[in-house]
């Protein structure tokens, strides 16, 4: 009975669970089905919206194309020709009408060519003048005059882009596109294009779709082929549509209502939106409620079936359970039997293993190659193996066991070792490889390594020791030998280091010993060169100087290489201007290159920062070596120095500098050995071109020391490209790039040069700094390009042109530009090779600072020249540092200053500034030269550049200040010329003995302050002026009298020359022969900002002018002399221009009088 109750309860539970599951299942089905229906409906809606979206996109594209057509019309040649002809004054009757016909043809072509699915897009194109009068009309014949349009009210000149609008006639709308037309920035009319509504309908047509254009005022409906008012067709039009709107659209004429999906998209810049509605069938989806009902019915049927089958199964279950119980007991018994048998087997296996293990360990014990033992606590052996027996010199184990009663005293040679061993075992319970000296049976001593373990009993007390003993006598002997060898090696190392130090000291000493006389030779030869010499003597002197410089360069190379090999070369890490460094190197080589007729081109990627950290002296050394080699091995063509950005990571900038030439090239098989020392490409090369073959080897070492790589690409006869990479640190606080004024970005610049490489790099540089640049390779093409740019209303602001183009010279180019009214406003900047500057000055008389650049181009100069050319006064002379403080100097004669500087331009600038102040100035290009000069002359002040080719300025200063110095005045004030602004550099300068520093670039103001500070009290007077000398060059009285002076005073000449016409004639001939070149020299010195020389030349010419009676010339030269003395550059410029004019007048006066043509007669 109990079982029956149990089963009954079980059945009920199961039934309940089944029902619950079924209910839940049905619910889930219904839910998912509903979701599916909703998704279907959504997909349907999305499809409709997608279609609408596609139509909107098509319409947007259509509108964009119409605007593009209008834009193309705006630049059509036919329209601009008409206005050009009109501007020329042509009348309709005589010629102008033909231009209108061209426009008409252009419009008609557009009308017929633009089609959409075979249908014309445009119905009409009209060009209307500002008064509203039609100039051109493609009106088809069928359009009636009733469609009159008041064009004037549709003109909108303020809009710059094409736009569209709807124009209402009495019962419909017309769609127009329009754009104002400008000719030479003046509004001259408007183009209107009438769109064929059929084309839009064809584009957008979709079954069950309504298309509207809506703005604030009205809603326009595209009714098949006509635009009409939506209010005429529909009721209840919504003002606003929400996203994915559905609403009821009611047609007026029919009682039909329809649900629609509407999407509104604004048309950019028009004020209109496109509104597209598509019919929406609400009944398109399936009925949602049917499925759940069907499912529920199915579930009930299933439930009934389950219940019946459940009842039948439960009875079967009871019988089955009883059967299973009996089977279970039988199995248990069987299981137990099996386990017992397994246990027996396992025990047998264990016994066997134990037996085998015992055998194995016994074998090990007996046969081991090391001594094994067991030892009692009292020091007697319990057991020993045969190896230990033989090690200790016994015959058998029993003999050994009997022999030792106390191993501490019997076995150990030194009992202290025994005690130590025991102590260690007690502390650690185990000692490994304890080395001790032991004694054998026969008293022989040997070294052994003992490994011993303390064995504890079950009571954890010490029971006995077990251990291993190994004979290490051989090893010990070897250790002794090794120790001795090491000692010998240490001694050898010390000797080698001493030798290296001696070598370095030798090199340093020899370097000084050799350099000193070399510098003496070079210094003396330099001084000799500047004295009065005959041509032959000068030639000998220059040859000797060149040879000495070459020898010194070779010595420096050898010393550098030795330093590198000895690992003694130390690199500096200084902040420097990478642009200045590269440009200085290139400029220094420019003359040599240009003398050989080679083009030297420099390019620096403008994204490279200006200030970096590194060793500028060594970088310059590598660069000079590569450029020097390029010049040496190139006979025609060009040399291009490019500096490119490679990467920047973690404040380290990597750049790549390459020097590429069109020279003799290097065979591929020689590339590997190029960078080895004393290697040239071929021995014939060494003979022909000279050179030590060390330059590249040193360059490689230096580059690798700086963390870079160096390599070459070359092929014989096809030139070479030597490149190297450099990792350079950037300043932590701020990364500074080239300073490019905002106002020049966006300028339109044309570069003209027949050297394609130079052209390409300069255009690339200009684009890199934000300038719109193009290039042309000839003057003719450039002129054509300037005109074309003007015509398309995008003229060039500046044209940078090589003065020596193949097809025309600069003066011809300038005339062609300036004589054309369209392009005459373009600023012109000429580029001139440094080598040709003086020849150019001879040709050109109107050179200013803002219209020429010297090649190779300095990029900073380039930027400032473009800025001046476009934005500054074109007649502005060079920048003048007018003193802010009215300090003037009175310098007695013979005050000598030394300038130690290797850059030729800086030399020139400093020398000029100091000479203007009245000092005598000497220049030294190297530290060695400086020392020689200081040893031979007494200088009151020294300006010392830090970066010099042979040694840095700090080193030179140390030598000057040293006790052993041989200079005349070791305490001479030394002023550092430094580009380094960092504090530690200034501190270092003071530490080595410098007195002051002056930052580069040096200004006159700073220079005067320093001079005043360090030369006060040394015979130099300083006085203040009450007022600045403004126009001081002009003597007012003289100016007033100038006009009254004769151009040529013949009587005065004769009076001065004892009435001898013959002498006077001769003097005039000489004057007219010499004066033009002197005037050129004067101008050249003016452009070089060398007031002192200007003054000197003017003074000389003044005298000779007076001699030949050129009174006005003389007066003018006097004014020039005074203006130069007061550094009045503005006045000087005007005076020098007047000088040329005055000389022309003088020449004409002489010719007019015919004095020079008279035959000599006997003088009175």
């Amino acid at each position, binding site marked *: 009975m109990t079982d029956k109750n149990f089963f009954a309860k079980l059945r009920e539970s199961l039934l309940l669970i089944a029902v619950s599951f079924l209910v839940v299942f049905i619910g889930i089905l219904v839910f998912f089905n509903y979701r599916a229906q909703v998704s279907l409906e959504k997909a349907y809606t999305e499809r409709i919206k997608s279609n609408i979206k596609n139509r909107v996109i098509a319409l947007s594209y259509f509108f964009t194309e119409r605007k593009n057509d209008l834009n193309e019309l705006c630049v059509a*040649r036919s329209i601009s*020709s008409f206005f*050009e*002809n009109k501007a*020329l*004054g*042509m*009348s*309709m*009757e*005589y*010629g102008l*009408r*033909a*231009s209108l*016909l*061209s426009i008409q*043809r252009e419009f008609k072509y557009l009308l017929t060519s633009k089609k959409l699915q075979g249908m014309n897009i445009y119905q009409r194109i009209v060009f209307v003048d500002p008064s509203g009068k039609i100039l051109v009309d493609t009106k088809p014949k069928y359009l009636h005059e009733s469609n009159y349009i008041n064009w004037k009210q549709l003109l909108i000149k303020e809009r710059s882009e094409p736009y569209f609008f709807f124009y209402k006639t009495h019962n419909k709308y017309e769609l127009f596109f329009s754009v104002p037309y400008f000719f030479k920035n003046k509004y001259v009319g408007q183009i209107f294009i009438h769109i064929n509504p059929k084309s839009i309908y064809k584009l957008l047509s979709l079954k069950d779709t309504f298309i509207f254009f809506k703005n604030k005022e009205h809603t326009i409906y595209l009714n098949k082929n006509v635009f009409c008012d939506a209010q005429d067709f529909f009721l209840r039009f919504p003002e606003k549509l929400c996203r994915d709107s559905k609403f009821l659209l009611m047609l007026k004429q029919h009682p039909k209502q329809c649900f629609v999906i509407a999407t509104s998209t604004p048309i950019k810049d028009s004020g209109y939106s496109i509104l597209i509605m598509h019919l929406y069938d609400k009944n398109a989806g399936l009925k949602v409620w049917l499925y759940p009902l069907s499912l529920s019915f199915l579930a009930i049927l299933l439930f009934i079936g389950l219940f019946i089958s459940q009842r039948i199964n439960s009875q079967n279950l009871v019988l089955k359970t009883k059967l299973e119980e009996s089977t279970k007991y039988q199995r248990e018994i069987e299981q137990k039997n099996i386990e017992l048998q397994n246990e027996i087997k396992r025990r047998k296996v264990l016994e066997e293993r134990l037996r085998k293990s015992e055998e194995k360990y016994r074998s090990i014990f007996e046969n081991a190659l090391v001594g094994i033992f067991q030892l009692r606590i009292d020091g007697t052996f319990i057991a020993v193996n045969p190896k230990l027996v033989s090690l200790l010199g016994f015959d058998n184990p029993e003999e050994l066991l009997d022999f030792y009663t106390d191993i501490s005293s019997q076995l150990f040679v030194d009992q202290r070792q025994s005690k130590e061993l025991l102590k260690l075992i007690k502390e650690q319970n185990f000692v490994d490889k304890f080395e001790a000296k032991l004694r054998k049976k026969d008293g022989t001593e040997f070294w052994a390594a003992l490994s011993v373990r303390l064995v504890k009993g079950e009571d954890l007390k010490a029971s006995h020791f077990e251990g291993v003993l190994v004979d290490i006598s051989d090893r010990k002997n070897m250790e002794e030998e090794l120790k001795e060898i090491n000692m010998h090696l240490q001694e050898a190392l010390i000797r080698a280091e001493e030798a290296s130090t001696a070598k370095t000291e030798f090199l340093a000493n020899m370097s000084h010993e050799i350099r000193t006389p070399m510098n003496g030779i070079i210094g003396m030869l330099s001084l000799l060169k500047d004295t009065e010499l005959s041509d032959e003597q000068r030639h000998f002197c220059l040859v000797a100087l060149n040879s000495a410089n070459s020898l010194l360069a070779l010595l420096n190379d050898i010393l550098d290489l030795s330093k590198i090999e000895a690992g003694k070369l130390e690199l500096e890490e200084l902040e420097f201007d990478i642009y200045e460094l590269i440009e200085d190197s290139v400029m220094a080589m420019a003359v040599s290159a240009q003398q050989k007729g080679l083009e030297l081109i420099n390019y620096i990627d403008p994204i490279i920062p200006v200030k970096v950290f590194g060793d500028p002296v060594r970088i310059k050394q590598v660069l000079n070596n590569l450029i020097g080699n390029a010049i040496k091995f190139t006979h025609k063509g060009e040399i291009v120095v490019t500096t490119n950005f490679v990467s920047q990571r973690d404040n380290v900038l990597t750049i790549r500098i390459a020097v590429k030439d069109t020279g003799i090239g290097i065979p591929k098989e020689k590339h590997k050995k190029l960078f080895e020392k004393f290697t040239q490409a071929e021995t014939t090369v060494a003979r022909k071109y000279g050179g030590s073959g060390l330059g590249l080897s040193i360059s490689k070492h230096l580059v690798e020391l700086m963390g870079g790589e160096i390599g070459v690409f070359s092929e014989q006869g096809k030139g070479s490209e030597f490149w190297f990479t450099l990792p350079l640190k950037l300043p932590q606080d701020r990364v500074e790039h080239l300073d490019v004024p905002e106002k020049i970005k966006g300028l339109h610049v044309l570069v003209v040069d027949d050297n394609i490489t130079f052209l390409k790099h300069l255009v690339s540089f200009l684009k890199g700094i934000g300038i719109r640049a193009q290039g042309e390779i000839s003057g003719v093409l450039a002129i054509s390009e300037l005109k074309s740019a003007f015509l398309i209303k995008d003229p060039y602001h500046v044209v940078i042109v090589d003065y020596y183009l193949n097809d025309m010279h600069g003066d011809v180019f300038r005339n062609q530009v300036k004589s054309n*009214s369209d392009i005459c406003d373009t600023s012109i900047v000429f580029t001139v090779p440094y080598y040709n500057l003086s020849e150019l000055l001879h040709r050109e008389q109107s050179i200013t600072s803002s219209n020429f650049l010297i090649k190779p181009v300095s990029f900073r100069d380039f930027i400032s020249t473009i800025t001046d050319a476009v934005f500054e006064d074109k007649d502005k002379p060079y920048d003048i540092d007018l003193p802010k403080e009215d300090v003037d100097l009175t310098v007695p004669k013979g005050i000598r200053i030394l300038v130690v500087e290797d850059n030729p331009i800086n030399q020139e600038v400093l020398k000029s500034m100091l000479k203007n102040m009245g000092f005598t100035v000497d220049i030294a290009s190297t530290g060695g030269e400086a020392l020689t000069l200081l040893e031979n002359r007494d200088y009151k002040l020294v300006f010392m550049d830090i970066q010099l080719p042979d040694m840095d300025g700090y080193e030179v200063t140390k030598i000057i200040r040293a006790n052993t110095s041989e200079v005349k005045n070791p305490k001479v004030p030394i002023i550092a010329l430094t580009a380094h602004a960092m504090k530690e550099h200034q501190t270092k300068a003071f530490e080595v003995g410098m007195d002051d520093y002056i930052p580069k670039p040096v200004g006159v103001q700073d220079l005067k302050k320093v001079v005043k500070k360090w030369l006060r009290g040394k015979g130099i007077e300083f006085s203040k002026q009450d007022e600045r000398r403004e126009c001081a060059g002009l003597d007012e009285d003289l100016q007033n009298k100038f006009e009254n002076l004769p151009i040529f005073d013949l009587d005065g000449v004769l009076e001065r020359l004892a009435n001898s016409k013959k002498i006077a004639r001769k003097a005039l001939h000489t004057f007219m022969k010499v004066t033009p070149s002197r005037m050129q020299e004067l101008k050249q010195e003016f452009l070089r900002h060398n007031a002192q020389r200007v003054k000197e030349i003017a003074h000389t010419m003044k005298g000779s002018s007076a001699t030949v009676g050129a009174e006005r010339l003389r007066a003018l030269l006097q004014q020039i002399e005074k203006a130069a003395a007061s550094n009045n550059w503005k006045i000087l410029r005007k005076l020098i221009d007047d000088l040329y004019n005055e000389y022309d007048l003088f020449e004409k006066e002489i010719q007019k009088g015919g004095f020079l043509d008279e035959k000599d007669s006997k003088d009175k």
Partner: protein
Amino acid sequence: MYNRKITKLMLLFFAIFLAAKSIYAFDLTDIKKRGVIRHLGVPYANFVTGAGDGFSVDLVKLFAKYINVKYEFVKTDWKHVIPDLIGKKIEVKGNQVKIIGDSPIKGDIIATGLTVLDWRKKLVSYSSPVFPTQIWLISRSDSKLTPIKPTGDISKDILAVLLKLRGMSVLNVPATCLDASLYGIKEYGAKVIDFNKNLNELAPAVINGKADATLLDVPDALVALEKFPGFIKVIGPLSKRQVMACAFRKDAAELKRTFEEFLDKIKKDGTYIKLVKKYYPAVLDYYPDFFGYGRKGDR
């Protein structure tokens, strides 16, 4: 004696007959017999382009088809175009012409934009006017000469142009409609320069600065304005309206009559206007009355 007289008379008639036959030797019949009509043309503007087409070329080709003969183009120049038709050498001075010898006949019809001039009328027989024209003065666009303001009176306009010419150099082509002596230009102080190259090179010559201005007829001027937009400008007229026509030998009456029929036909069927639109669309707007249009909108 009586027999001799008759023989002489017969010989005379025979001679006359032979002479008459030779007069008609190059007329229509002979051309049909020969099977080819020879078209004398000078490469000039769009009348004879030099590329095998042109208004005049197309016109004569159509005429050849009309009379069922082949077409042959015979290239000539302005100096020889009339001698090549009439077989006589001529000397022209201003409006006066003199026959100075014989030369071979090379063509049957002149159609090459030949303007009707008085001295030419003395030598050839012109067809009905085929094309309108006028002489304009053209200069470079940056020249000191400025276009006149039309007054509506052609004579006043011509005078206004002439008064601008003092001291100016003007190109002209002697013995053609561009002969300066026909328009009194020298009398108004202009320096006349003879130009002996192709007439198509007149405008380029002025652009390149060979002279301050040049004479051009309207068809050529319209072509030049299209070829060199912005480089030249029209100052104004130097002549009243002129016409161009085809020319025949005076003894080719049949040929000329047939050509007139042909011309009438193509004017009626629209072929003529199509030719004009093809080569000189602008001229329809300048001289609408010549082409039978009342207003501009009717085209």
